[in-house]
């Protein structure tokens, strides 16, 4: 499956990037494709293109803050979790994606 994801935490210097890394790693292990946008203290990095969002089967939002540009994902299958979940049990997020598909 193809995923796009956004991660964000309040301080934006640690959790945001750890979550992104875990999602990328776990997706690789499970054989999924993923692109992760981070919304940290540096602002938006690795921003998702409209084409990437359109081509994704599901959107993962792993954030403790209100993310920027949430309307980009209107009408997509969304999986919303706290940023901790992406860090500690990223596998469960992809399991959920399989279930909701």
């Amino acid at each position, binding site marked *: 499956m193809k995923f796009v994801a956004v991660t964000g935490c309040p301080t934006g210097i*640690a*959790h945001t990037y750890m979550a992104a890394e875990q999602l990328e790693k776990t997706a690789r292990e499970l054989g999924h494709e993923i692109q992760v946008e981070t919304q940290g*203290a540096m602002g938006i990095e690795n921003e998702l293109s409209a084409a990437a969002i359109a081509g994704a089967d599901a959107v993962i939002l792993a954030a*403790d*803050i*209100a993310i920027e540009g949430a309307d980009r994902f209107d009408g997509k299958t969304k999986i919303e979790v706290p940023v901790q979940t992406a860090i500690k049990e990223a596998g469960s997020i992809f399991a959920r994606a399989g279930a909701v598909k």
Partner: protein
Amino acid sequence: MAIDFKETAARHKQYLLTGVSYAVPFIACGGILIAVSLAFAPPGPNGAPDPSGSEILSLIEKIGASAFSLMFPVLGGFIAYAMASRPGLVPGFIGGAIASMPQTLPDGKTANAGFLGAIFAGLLAGHVVNLIKKAPIPVIFKPIMPILIIPIFGALLVGSVMFVVNLPIAKTMVGLGDMLKQMEGQSQYLLAAILGAMIAFDMGGPVNKAAFFFGASMIEQGNFRIMGAVAIAICTPPLGLGLATLLRRKLWNDDQRNAGKAALGMGMIGITEGAIPFAAADPIRVLPCIMAGSITGAVIGMAAQVGDHAPHGGPIVLPVVDNRWWYVFAIVVGTLVTAISINALKAVGQKKENEAQPAPAA
């Protein structure tokens, strides 16, 4: 339509944290600049450091104070932004600005609604703007909604409410402060312990900031000891975890040892956030250990009458601290408590894991 309470609470927590995430760099920038300007300043008439004699120091102090004065507007503005997107900014910023205006109390003292006021303003502004957005508007007015109608009416509404609640909130803050000032003996240590626990609890989040703002507002009222205890608690979590990675290297992996060095640096300049990578990976073990260290340090500081004249913590503010040796001692003890306890817990945990899996697969 039933309102899901849990869902609503979770959303509001996101709003608050969004505001905090934008305010943190302002707080760190302002706090460090003010601390630096006070650190090199000679003592003034009342014994406190006074940078007004030096052009460079008073310039640095003014720049830091500007950053600090923006923190409540930014907090209120971005809480509202999280809730209502761009149209929330104007009423949120204005509400936060009103919260930072000094109010004259009946006894002649001045205080502002501060942190509590800015949070209230941001939430109010977000809700108000979301309501205005829903109003049925003739098509002809649509284009002026975001640039005229919402900012003006949002600001009028939020501003009016803020001017009404400002004084009561400010009074509450001062009342709390007076109550705490009167605390003698035992309860004073309890206060230090509570503040220490709050500082370590979420490492820079809203609980941490509530304790921090309390200490900072006490400085304005001439009580430096609360901030003294807070300043110690601020730095022991990253220092303790950083030290732990140096003391028993085998318990930590490469990433953690690198994070440990960064944590030591952040601890020295009073950024509790340096502890976050550790707490994120293993909160059940890390949180009690850093809370224990911060509580220990804060209580020692309170007992030894350590005072801090700058709204910032960590060894970097040492020059503006009263009873410096005790300040250093309290930091060292708090750091050791965290470092030793986390290593002990980690060692036990790893032993258990090894017993559970006698032949680790990887």
